[in-house]
């Protein structure tokens, strides 16, 4: 139990959204979550962060100036394939993203508006655990 908690505390989630208010609300809403949280307003900056920091899960908005969420995810998948990719999707975007979900480019969609205790926290944790499982499988394979 202690170990598991320790592991999750070692995980980092990066949130990308061009709307500062969204980032603020996520920051304060996830205040008590065990994993580390990083917030950025643009994809460019997010890519910079990825170069410096070890990030395990990314949650990105779809519509952003300069680079859309989907483009960002494609880059991440290519550069950092192990990172679990999630999209904070608004109304009417699910259909457009369904394809990406089916092709495994996106782990899960988080619908806007969200409920923190209802599903948001749960989905992030699932993503982190998914990363852990994936990581463990990788470790076992490497050992073998």
């Amino acid at each position, binding site marked *: 139990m202690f170990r598991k908690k320790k592991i999750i505390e070692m995980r980092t989630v990066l949130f990308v959204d061009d*709307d*500062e*208010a*969204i980032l*603020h*609300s*996520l920051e*304060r*809403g996830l*205040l*008590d979550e065990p994993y580390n949280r990083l917030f950025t307003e643009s994809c460019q900056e997010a890519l910079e962060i990825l170069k410096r920091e070890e990030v395990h899960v990314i949650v990105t908005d779809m*519509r*952003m*100036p300069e680079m*859309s969420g989907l483009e960002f995810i494609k880059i991440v998948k290519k550069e950092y394939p192990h990172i679990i990719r999630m999209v904070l999707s*608004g*109304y*009417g*975007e699910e259909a457009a993203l369904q394809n990406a979900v089916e092709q495994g480019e996106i782990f899960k969609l988080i619908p*806007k*508006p*969200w*409920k*923190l*205790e209802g599903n*948001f926290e749960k989905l992030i944790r699932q993503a982190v655990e998914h990363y852990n499982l994936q990581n463990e499988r990788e470790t076992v394979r490497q050992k073998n």
Partner: protein
Amino acid sequence: MRISQRLILGFLAIAMWVAVVGHISLYQLNQISDPLSNDIPESVKSINKTAYLDGLSQSIRYYHEVSTQSARNYAFTQDKRWKQHYKDIEPELDRVIKDASEKGGEKDRGFFSTIYKVNHTLMEMENKSIELVDKGQPEEAIKILESSKYWDQKKNFEQDIGDYVSRRGIKYDEALSSSTRAVNLATKQAQDLIKTSTRLILIFGVVAIILAIGAGLLISRSIYVPLFELKAAADEIGKGKIDTQIEITSNDEVGQLASSFKKMLNDLQKTTTSIDNLNLEITERKKAEESVRHAYEDLEKANQEMKEMQSQLVQSEKLSSIGQLAAGVAHEMNTPVGFVASNFETLEKYMIKIEKLFQMYSELIDKIETSDKAVLLDKVDAISKSRNEMKIDFILKDLSVLFNDSREGIDRVTSIVQNLRDFSRKDDPENFDIYNINDGIRATLVVVQNEIKYDADVEMELSEVPQILCSTGQINQVLLNILMNAAQAIKSQERDDKGKITIRTYATDDEVVCEISDDGPSIEPDKLAKIFDPFFTTKPVGKGTGLGLSISYDIIVNKHKGALLVDNSVGKGTKFTIKLPINKKETEKERMVENNENKNCIIRG
């Protein structure tokens, strides 16, 4: 000859016949009346005269005898009764003689005047004798009466009157027999004439009746026969034998009727032929019409189907714009609603934590007097630890940010809702409302912001423009459509930099103009002419109905009597120009109505 003439002539002939017969009869009657009125009365008159004179002569003889005898008797007897007798008779005798001399003929008159004179001579002597008797000298009186002078006179008188009477007697018989003859002759003549006339009148009457019947028969026959022929012909024609021939046998009214009838028949024959031809033509035409009608019905059906399809498409375009609108609005709302809701949830957690900390502080305060310092210090440590664990410092610092963020989010939602209401305030195409195109642009931009903002910057050069009357919902739909097209065109270029959409408004004397230009790909010249055509689209299949601009054109040009122009400068993007007419009078009126409404209705949702 005309029937009327014939009739008149017939009746004239009969009338003349009757006139002639009447005249002859009258003549005959005249023949009878001549002897009756002239000869016979003359005879009777002469007889009467003769008889009267004869009577008078007898009276004269008688009165003479009596008067002379009375005068003699008086002279001899001196008896006064004789004198009286004489005085009675004497004037009678005088009167009778006078009468006879007046009534008699030429000869009689001469005779009677002689008698009259003789009588007077006798009367003088007799009166003298009567006077002498009265004087008492009867002898003197007898002397006079016995005188030869007296007797001569008396004898003459008696002789004359006697002769006259006897002569009269012969004349009387003659007169009597001649008048009887005259009467007999006249009667016979009259009887003969009456007989002849009766016979003649009978013959003439019979002849007149025969003539009248004959003329009537002839005239009626001359009318009836051709009429009957005409009727027979008419019956034949009535049975449908229109080739029946009509012979014209007279030139009277019936003849004229027959000739008119014949003419009519000829026309009828011609008409019938034409009708037959027409019937043929009509049958053919009906066939043609039938097929045309079928074709028309098919066309109508097709048209109906097309109309239905069109209305479905217009509906789907409308739904599509409503969908876009809803999607845009929902998307725009998602973000603020998302973080406000999230913040609210967090605020609840913050509250719980703060309450918890508060509780701990309360407990500490309670224990300050009863507990020793070590216990209190432990408690303070625990509080401090909890405070760190609960990140209270962050929370306290974050609270104002949370409120600011949330307020801003709620403002954004409010603004969106407000703009949404402005965007399609009254979508009633029948009733135009007051519209300021600048407000319309702002409201529309809020709705399409989400579509545009990542691909293009919107630059606005909005001038003060007058308000116009139009359908807010429809004009905003056009703005939305053009802005969306511009955004999608820029997006389709997949360029690195952001595109630019410029919205410019200004007013001319009678129009409000809105120019929306983009720096996206320009439309190819061959497609430019088609962009307002229904179903024309350059977007990939399934991406557009191809009705957006055609509906926009309909809204601006047909419904608002404005103009929708497209300008294509190759390499410089596309510019759409919307021109809407300003109707100052109506706008003013509408504004007044709206002001009144505002006054009357203070609370408005």
